[in-house]
């Protein structure tokens, strides 16, 4: 949890990548401590902004030094005022950045085969993770899925950084038509993967967890809950997760996550955009109670 900095980041490069915007900021002091799976929280809208809350983005990559000093890259899908504002920035614009935040993907101690699954911009943090895993001698395969081709991120990069790449799209515009969970069993079986890493929408993370479990692999998933602060002080980003002691608690995904072991997440509590407190969770409301 240490090593987090708050810096004014200067945007030095912004380019479209399909449906997304890929931004590179100079962010001195941030890159040094960052690890794959962590995220940054960006203030949006500038000095006169009515959007008070920071927006969180997975770190796509960092480079601790270089011409500009340390840089951090993020991949942004414009879906609302904050992400649209960020997507519209031009070189030399400044953004206040807090990071690196949250828990990184845990790396296996042994050089075991791993499958990395990304949905949409959820693939953004995986290339960096792939690199770290291959440095440890892991065989790494990537599975990238999206609704349509323009919403895939990093297919070219994937081919460079992994030992194998599978692509799926819902509409068949690229790769196999269907979901990542359709091709995942084959990839796990073929590679004998011990760990499946996932990043993407909640529904996808749940099925990755199920598929991994069915094949005896551990799932490590990076979740994306709505966050107001990103630094652990607001309690808005909670989700029910079962601890080592078997007790389910509403834990903050910004500090205890965003990466969780898939089998620890109480997927049963999520439904149609809401997450209920499981009745067996610590301090759950009594019937008629709070």
């Amino acid at each position, binding site marked *: 949890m240490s090593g987090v900095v*708050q810096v004014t980041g200067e945007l030095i490069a912004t380019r479209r990548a399909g449906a997304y915007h890929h931004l590179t900021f100079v962010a001195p002091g941030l890159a040094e401590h960052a690890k794959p799976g962590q995220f940054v929280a960006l203030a949006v809208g500038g000095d006169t902004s009515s959007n008070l*809350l920071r927006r969180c983005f997975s770190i796509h990559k960092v480079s601790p030094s270089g011409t500009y000093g340390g840089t951090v890259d993020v991949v942004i899908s414009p879906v609302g005022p904050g992400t649209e504002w960020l997507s519209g920035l031009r070189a030399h614009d400044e953004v*206040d950045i807090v990071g690196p935040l949250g828990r990184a993907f845990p790396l296996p101690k042994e050089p075991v085969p791993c499958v990395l699954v990304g949905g949409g911009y959820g693939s953004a943090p995986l290339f960096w993770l792939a690199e770290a895993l291959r440095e440890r001698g892991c065989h790494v395969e990537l599975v990238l899925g999206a609704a349509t081709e323009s919403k895939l991120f990093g297919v070219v990069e994937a081919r460079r950084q992994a030992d194998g790449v599978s692509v799926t799209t819902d509409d068949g515009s690229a790769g196999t038509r269907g979901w990542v969970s359709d091709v995942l069993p084959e990839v796990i079986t073929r590679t004998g993967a011990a760990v499946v890493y996932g990043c993407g929408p909640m529904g996808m993370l749940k099925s990755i967890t199920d598929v991994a479990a069915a094949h005896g692999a551990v799932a490590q998933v990076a979740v994306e809950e709505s966050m107001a602060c990103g*630094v652990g002080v*607001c*309690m*808005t980003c909670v989700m029910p997760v079962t601890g080592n002691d078997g007790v389910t608690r509403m834990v903050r995904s910004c500090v205890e996550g965003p990466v969780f072991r898939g089998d620890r997440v109480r997927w049963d509590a999520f439904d149609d955009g809401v*997450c209920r407190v499981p009745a067996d969770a610590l301090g759950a409301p009594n019937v008629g109670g709070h």
Partner: protein
Amino acid sequence: MAVDMSVDLGGASLPSPMMTASGCAANGRELARFFDIRELGAFVTKSVMADPRSGRGTPRMAETPSGMLNSIGLQGPGISAFIDKDLAWLHQAGARTLVSIAGNTSGEFAVVAARLRESAAFGSVVGVEVNISCPNVANRGLVFACDPLASAKVVALVREQLPRNIPIFAKLTPDVTDIVSIAQAAVKAGADGLTMINTLLGMVIDTDRLRPQVAGVTGGLSGPAVRPVAVRAVWQVKSAMREGRLPTVPIIGVGGVRTGRDALELVAAGASAVQVGTATFNDPSAPVRVGRELENLLQDKGFGCLKDAVGIAHERMA
């Protein structure tokens, strides 16, 4: 020459008027990554109740224009775990702690206060904030601070449990027809000071799904959007004190503070200390940054000490 920023809050002497706001700073460790929490006049903890509480399901928040709506549902570890883990940590970190307590019933407030008094780390507690802006189970969930009698009862019970030298602050909701009458009741019942304001009751509808956005249906509105309501509440209660309609006790101002100028608004309206809540989500070091900005502003205006600025706008009516 530096401005003397010290304040005396009903017996608690603090080197700075700046505080975190309850529920907007967790219990210390998280913000300690961004600044030295001893720089604060006091660290205000998340309202703690007798037992552990999971809080509500999610979504728990919605962003609103210049603010946010939250519906956390007072998630917390319960007083025992709070004492063992959080207060102990704050104690060793050298923080001056203003412990915020809450209850479903007035009795629960008393239980929490009693447990607190007995705790080993009680030495780091500079005061107790009594969050009466929470639902009273006995009265169909009506917020205690909406009713003078219920407010008075809670305050009196808490006052009994705590040593005289520990000031207690009643935290009021602005969602009332007459905030002065609630302030009167609280002070009469033994509150050594008042904290104003808690969030406003608000609601956001998810226009994609056409249903309430937060799982709790309604929620608390906070942030710069509500600052004018906070300034007004502090002003009204301070006016009443000046007119002798209630005894003069220190006011802790909270609501929408993001900059030193915002803090100065509350101070000039009558607040002796200032809490920074939602702005912390935007800038994790806001509580201390605002303090520095406030000090600079006071210096520029030629004030030698903060105390001279408290309530000054009442003397300068246009």
